[in-house]
């Protein structure tokens, strides 16, 4: 299969929903559940993207990412902390030596409606201040009006500006609306140099959904088949429960396989997911649910 984002790739929405429904019937129990929960925990991009963010808030978030639950020191750390560019220096300092990555949104997040030069500056600022991962947004207006080459070139230039930092390309699937658009944007982004493709900013509803994620995972699989390159996936927004996280992992496993069941290849963009996973891990270990008051709200 040759990759060409201009080529139409029909997708039947009813069929996608049915496939998701079948995947969700996998029953994840006992040791599989506990391992899946820990794995999901290790894949979280712990996120705060508010206009009200301050160094204090970011430091709290970083502390949670380093030590998700003090009574269980053997739990994995979260994968990254995801913040706005001006918060990057704070996060870098707070996470020093922890192995937790600092991810920064850039490119006039969340709308992306700024000139390319501003987006490039935005990106470079974050990278220069120590962000090792950049979450960019595509120009959805250009995409929807058919200017695919513009969107492609923009991603390619941002990628160059990233240098060694990993580039996650946010498609904002809630605005692309159709699954065929999601497929096309996924292939386009991967061809243009994305290291990860990501569903949403979290600022538009619907954010991540399972049908959208499945279509993106299938695009990643076909891209790998065709080019040999392994691209990562990040659903973001709306994933709040441990059970949902396990359902996503089942989807990743049965679409892409073991190689993608790792934080280097799959991330959850979420803020409240962490505590639900922690509660479930404690339940799996101790056999009883704990009060949410035992878990810090950072």
């Amino acid at each position, binding site marked *: 299969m040759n990759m060409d984002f201009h080529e139409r790739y*029909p*997708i039947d929405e009813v069929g996608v929903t049915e496939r998701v429904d079948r995947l969700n*019937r996998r029953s994840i*129990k006992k040791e599989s559940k506990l391992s899946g929960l820990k794995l999901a925990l290790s894949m979280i991009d712990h996120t705060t993207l508010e206009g009200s963010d301050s160094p204090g808030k970011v430091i709290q978030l970083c502390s949670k990412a380093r030590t998700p639950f003090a009574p269980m*020191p053997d739990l994995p750390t979260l994968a990254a902390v995801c913040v706005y560019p001006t918060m990057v220096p704070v996060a870098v300092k707070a996470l020093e030596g*922890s192995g937790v990555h600092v991810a920064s949104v850039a490119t006039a997040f969340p709308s992306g409606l700024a000139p390319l030069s501003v987006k490039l500056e935005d990106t470079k600022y974050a990278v220069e201040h120590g962000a090792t991962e950049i979450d960019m947004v595509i120009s959805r207006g250009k995409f929807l009006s058919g200017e695919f080459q513009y969107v492609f070139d923009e991603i390619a230039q941002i990628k160059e500006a990233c240098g060694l930092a990993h580039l996650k390309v946010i498609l904002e699937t809630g605005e692309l609306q159709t699954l065929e658009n999601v497929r096309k944007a996924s292939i386009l982004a991967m061809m243009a140099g994305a290291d990860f493709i990501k569903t949403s900013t979290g600022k538009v509803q619907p954010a991540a959904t399972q049908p959208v994620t499945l279509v993106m995972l299938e695009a990643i699989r076909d891209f790998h088949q065709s080019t040999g390159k392994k691209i990562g996936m990040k659903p973001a927004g709306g994933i709040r429960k441990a059970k949902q996280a396990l359902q996503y992992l089942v989807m990743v496993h049965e679409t892409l396989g*073991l190689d993608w069941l790792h934080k280097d290849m799959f991330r959850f963009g979420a803020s409240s997911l962490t505590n639900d996973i922690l509660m479930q891990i404690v339940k799996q270990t101790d056999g009883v649910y704990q009060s949410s008051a035992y878990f810090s709200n950072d």
Partner: protein
Amino acid sequence: MKPKSSQTPDPSMAETFLKYAAAPESTRQIRLRDQYGLFIDGTFRKPESGQWMDSLNPANESLLAKVAVASEQDVHRAVQAAGKAQKKWQKMPARERGKVLYRLARLIQERSRELSVIESMDGGKPIRESRDVDIPLVAAWFFYYAGWADKLQYAFPGRETTPVGVCGQIIPWNFPLLMLAWKIAPALAAGNTVVLKPAETTSLTALVFADICRDADVPPGVINIITGAAATGQALVHHPEIKKIAFTGSTAVGKWIQKAIAGTGKKYSLELGGKGANIIFEDAPLDQAVEGVINAIFFNQGHVCCAGARLLVQESVSESFLRKLKHRMSHLIVGDPLDKNTDIGAINSASQLQRIKEYINIGLAEGAQMYQSHETVPSKGYFCSPTLFTDVSQSNTVVQEEIFGPVLTVQTFRTPSEALEKANNTPYGLSGGVWTDKGSKIFQAGSEIQAGVLWSNTFNKFDPTSPFGGVKESGVGREGGLHGLYPYINLR
């Protein structure tokens, strides 16, 4: 002191997760008797024959219960009971008949978990299917025909309907309780009484259903369930007081029934074998079509008369489609039917497994390329790996004959007309599937494929409102919908 953190994820986490720990459905609530007699005139009786047969669990070859073998005399008693009951049943206000059917539907829903588990233990099908497909459809069928019971004059405006009388019904082992529902619900709604014979390897849910009939106050004799093998079925077909035969099973037996009842005036409906073609055009939604192929041939271990057993895929996409299909097959879970994660359970019987293996050997001997997604399957019980045959042609035995197992043949085509010609080049005509993004191709296939059922961009979907049945050697008569009432009424 440096806080303890920076844990890198342990690589075995992913491996432990993806093995999906066993998640078996509990059998603690299931109470099966040691032996089941014949359900005649509202009570269980010992068979006159004095003979009993074993009902085995095909997943572990253990004995579930002993089941009576009905002799000719037993058949006669059941038909007599049904005849006596039919006169009252016909005269009962139609609304009351409807109520009985509604009660059956509700009791089936109430006991759906128990029925699902027994269906999976006795027949080998995965609990995911018996729980989500079989038993919900059983209830839906009774609900649907309950509604028709007092509306027959609207079903056939300006005509007077009378019931046929006592119906002899013989059902197969692939969907035991669902086939019972397809047969009994329309018959009773139209005022008939029935003598039903389940398949010899899968009688148990029918016998639990007999208990449900008593709980639902079905008048004695309206539903009679006699178990046994071929001789029992033959006695039922030959009985002179049977007015209609409804049969689902093989084409060979269907032909025998037609001969046996020729000249007797008995009505009949036959739902027989199939070798459905599933056509993938190059403009199809390929990822969803892969899932459709999985549902078409690996649903119920391929023990489906309307299975899409022949895959016809356009040459331009055949390579990528097959790669996707093989990848999907590698994630099917073959094993314990009671595990909630099992996709493919046990083959129904040792003899059926033997038959499938013979066909696989014939396919290899005729030069086909075989792909099996699972190198090993459980050794205890009757299991078969999902199997693909490529490099086959229309003249191969595995393409021509119904295998009734998880075996798919793959042929390619270049043009739509070539696909339709191949699809129709079979003595069967039960089902077909077409996958394309283009409506006109769907309409063309719909008018040219000779099959009773055609699915577009989906496969193996069933609903009580939709008639089901075959053309050519796949049978006569329709079950389901308004059409499903015709075999059970005389019109004046």
